[in-house]
């Protein structure tokens, strides 16, 4: 980690005052590039590793920038007072953070050097050895996405099977890492009581996992697809109703997990 501040990586956004992704007030750094192509993805500009131009509010804007850890940390640490007061810190998100393991590792290490809390939002899509050696040593909280227990359906909606995700979830849990499982609840994909309960049962079976977050699908990213010249394949999908979310929450809570709606 000698030159960790000079490690470079590719990000597409930094978002301050995040209050729904880990403890306290946080800054989210979004790393560019993802292994999945989830059809509901609200950040389609995150998917390709290559920088790309997206039309936003009628104007073209380039997404994807190569930066050093030092540059990122300078921005992140501007909110140091807010972290100190709230117990917050840095969250890495994506794209898939773990696809840039050296960069992610250096960022988390740098955050720990500054004494702030660290978290990642990830699908765990990486070799476990890399996760274990480069990420977990500097990580306070792993927010792990599990989208479906049926691998075929998982693949149909995300382009990848769920095998590695489930395998890694168990391995990570076994290390004693603080782990919260999060499920994007997407109508037509996984929003039945059976499907959610299946995920909840799996989560409950992981050692040390106590919490499950159900994140209702939203349409806020829809117009980004047009901005990128891509097609949104779920054009008519409506967000799940409040009552339905409550029903899913109650069902999932039967596993004994603490279940909340939203992050």
């Amino acid at each position, binding site marked *: 980690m000698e030159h960790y501040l000079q490690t470079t990586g590719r990000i597409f956004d930094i*978002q*301050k*005052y995040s*209050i729904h992704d880990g*403890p*306290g*007030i946080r800054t989210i750094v979004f790393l560019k590039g993802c292994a999945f192509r989830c059809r509901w993805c609200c950040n389609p500009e995150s998917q390709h590793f290559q920088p790309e131009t997206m039309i936003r509010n009628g104007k073209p804007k380039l997404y994807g920038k190569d930066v050093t850890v030092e540059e990122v940390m300078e921005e992140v640490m*501007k*909110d140091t*007072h*807010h972290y*100190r*007061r*709230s*117990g*917050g810190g840095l969250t890495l998100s994506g794209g898939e953070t773990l696809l840039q393991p050296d960069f992610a590792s250096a960022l988390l290490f740098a955050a*720990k050097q500054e004494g702030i*809390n*660290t978290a990642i939002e990830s699908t765990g899509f990486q070799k476990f050895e890399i996760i274990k050696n480069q990420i977990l040593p500097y990580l*306070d*909280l792993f927010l792990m996405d599990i989208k479906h227990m049926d691998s075929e359906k998982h693949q149909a909606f995300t382009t990848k099977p769920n095998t590695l995700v489930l395998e890694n979830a168990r391995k990570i849990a076994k290390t*004693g890492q*603080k782990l919260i499982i999060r499920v994007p609840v997407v109508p037509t994909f996984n929003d039945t009581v059976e499907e959610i309960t299946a995920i909840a049962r799996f989560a409950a079976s992981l050692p040390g996992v106590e919490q499950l977050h159900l994140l209702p699908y939203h349409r806020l990213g829809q117009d980004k697809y047009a901005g990128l010249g891509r097609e949104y394949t779920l054009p008519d999908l409506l967000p799940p109703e409040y009552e339905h979310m409550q029903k899913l929450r109650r069902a999932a809570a039967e596993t004994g997990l*603490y279940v*909340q709606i939203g992050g």
Partner: protein
Amino acid sequence: MKSPFDIFAQVMYTFNHDDTVGKGRAVLKKFFDGDIQKSPRIQKLYDDLFDHMPTIEADRAEIVTRVYQETENDPIITRRGKVFKAICEELPIIIRPLELVVGSNTQVARGCQVFPEYSFEWLESEFDTVETRSADPFYISEDTKKRLHEVYKYWPGKTTSDLATSFMAPETLMAIKHNMFTTGNYFYNGIGHFTVDYEKVLKIGFEGIRKEAETARDRLHVFDPDYAERNAFLEAVIMCCDAAITYAGRYAMLALEEAEKCSDPDRKKELLQIAQNCARVPAKPARSFYEACQSFWFVQMLLQTESSGHSISPGRFDQYMYPYYEEDMKSGKITREFAQELLDCIWIKLNDLNKCRDAASAEGFAGYSLFQNLIVGGQDKEGLDVTNDLSCMCIEASMHVMLPQPSLSIRVWNGSPNALLIKAAKLTRTGVGLPAYYNDEVIIPSMLSRGVTMEDARNYGIIGCVEPQAGGKTDGWHDAAFFNMCRPLEMVFSNGYEFGDKVGLQTGSLESFKTFDDFYFAYKQQMEYFIQLLVNSDNSIDVAHATRCPLPFQSSMIADCIGRGKALQQGGAIYNFTGPQGFGIANMTDALYAVKVLVFEEKKYTLQQFAQALNDNFGRGLSKERLSDLTLQVTKELARAGKQVGEKDVEQIALQIQKDSVTPEQKAFYDQMLEDINGLPKYGNDLPEIDLFARDVAYTYTRPMEKYKNPRGGMYQAGLYPVSANVPLGHQTGATPDGRLANTPIADGVGPVSGKDTLGPTATANSVARLDHGIASNGTLFNQKFHPSALSGMEGLQKFVSLIRAYFDQKGMHMQFNVVSRETLLDAQVHPDQYKGLVVRVAGYSALFTTLSKSLQDDIINRTTQGF
């Protein structure tokens, strides 16, 4: 093995997710912070409050005028004593249905009396519009108009405003005419803006204060050089103490009469209790919490009949009321629920008081607000935390009544208990725009730097919107002027001229500015010049009040008026300040920065091009106001050249001016210019370079101010806040180089230009904290708008509190929040009748949204909704 980070994160997590944490803390904290049931009486009192439109009443004006006529040969302080005495003896009194704490200065709820001794022409000229104006309308009956018309015959040439005008220098009057600043607040009204020593009245009553004044009088020697003045003053104080006792006595009688007539046995008992209370206080020391409430209220309402000054602030109510509450709770004399009901009754009464301002001031202070600032929490004189049950019950009272008064404030310091802040955040979450949060860690040192002692500084309260004051000892003259920091920049561009008048300094032609420093220096010179004129204006008004309206009743409760034998207006207080407030820092920062980069660094545009662009309003067409200004200018020039100008000609001129506005090429040029300006970094995005520049721009106002003195022997101290004047005064301001169009609002408080902060509340707060708040010892104002979901659950509240703490860690001074959805506000504009009770935060205070003018409503809606 878990790392310390793990454990910390887990503790925070559990804390954030456990709704019982707040309640479970009972073992740790020594005060009650739970919910208390709202009594049905409060809803009834609330409904009655809005039964009628606010009404203007003529009784006080008649009494004052009669007494003035009868006392022409008395010293002014004696006349003021006699005025107060006559008001206490004659002003019609009323007990409103079901109220437990009595004392109203109008027959109709939320009505107002008239104060002709300060100014009257404006009201007479607005007789026919005051009922239909957009900001704070009042009903006025034909009979009242007639009575006031009679009264007004006496006053020409005799008011404080008449005298003040006669004191002002010609260049000052010119600057005022051109709206460089406005000192209208104290020009038209009494001064107010103080906290009296309520504690003293509760402890010794007016009989005690009378005794103090008598003792002081008896110590005078007839051969003392200032015997005449001191003696007359002390006699007036004695007269006022007696008058207040008389007034309460009338209420005791009225309550007795009503009790006799009352057929409802419960209400009868209440009325008898009220009669007993009024017979006892405020003459004598309060013996119970209920008596203390009644005593407090008589003081609070009578202060607001003596003069038309607003921001008569109850100050540290939770502190001086606490001994009575504690005693009664210990002895079992009252329940917490009844104590809460009494507080709620007072809260309703604070909204019953009202004042009619002139149309322009009503826009600047919109929302019928009297800015009675009541503050809870904080430290005592020794620096120890003093949060108690009442601190939380005051917050609870605001939740119960959901009304803009009192302007509730919370003192926050490093030792403030979390439970108090969580309780406060719950109130914020309701969207009522209360409370405002204040930072002891900035305010106390700031006051020390102004010569306030450590003990007094630690005991500070807030006056009006955001102004710190050592209560019971200060004549702060806070809110002394609105100074529009954008106007001096216009003077730089026009070399001191406007519409043919020489208004500012001649700081040089645009060609003469070779560097940005030259240009910036010219701005600083213009600033300094207008600050000097502002001082001239305020000092003129100050002397006018000392001469024509020294006020013995309020002086009886502020140290050391009795000791010095002088009224507050004549320098009787221990601490004397004048605090005029500047606003427009964000616009001027972005504007000067744009000039610096685009003209002097990148050389993309010349100063002349900027000047032309501002004149042409960036090709965005002329607003109605600008058009009429320009038409007036041309008309005047024609008249000066000896040409006759008729109504038809004026229309022609206006048409011509509109036609002369920009060509398509120019329009394209201005579009590019605006794009270049918008592309520059802006204040409010946590960019140290521009934020530190903002700090320097703020100094152009705050630093010169420290040099000047007022006639009461005190110093000037700057504030940085506009109340809501950034909207109406923005209407009088041309386009500015930050891309702000002519006649549009100026940025609010010390916050960024609306919509220019794009990184969310932490970034905005970090930027604002880079200003030097301590030097603005008259207060700074920072508003943020939140969607309610940012404060949802215990976790949301806790994160919200962290944001406040983090801003205060960085030496921010004040923070206030608007939590309401945009949709709600838009709907309220369309259906005002359905949102009569909708309170939003406007500048430093909360107001009823539907009573605000359309433009102010729009400004509130347009503020960045942060966090989402």
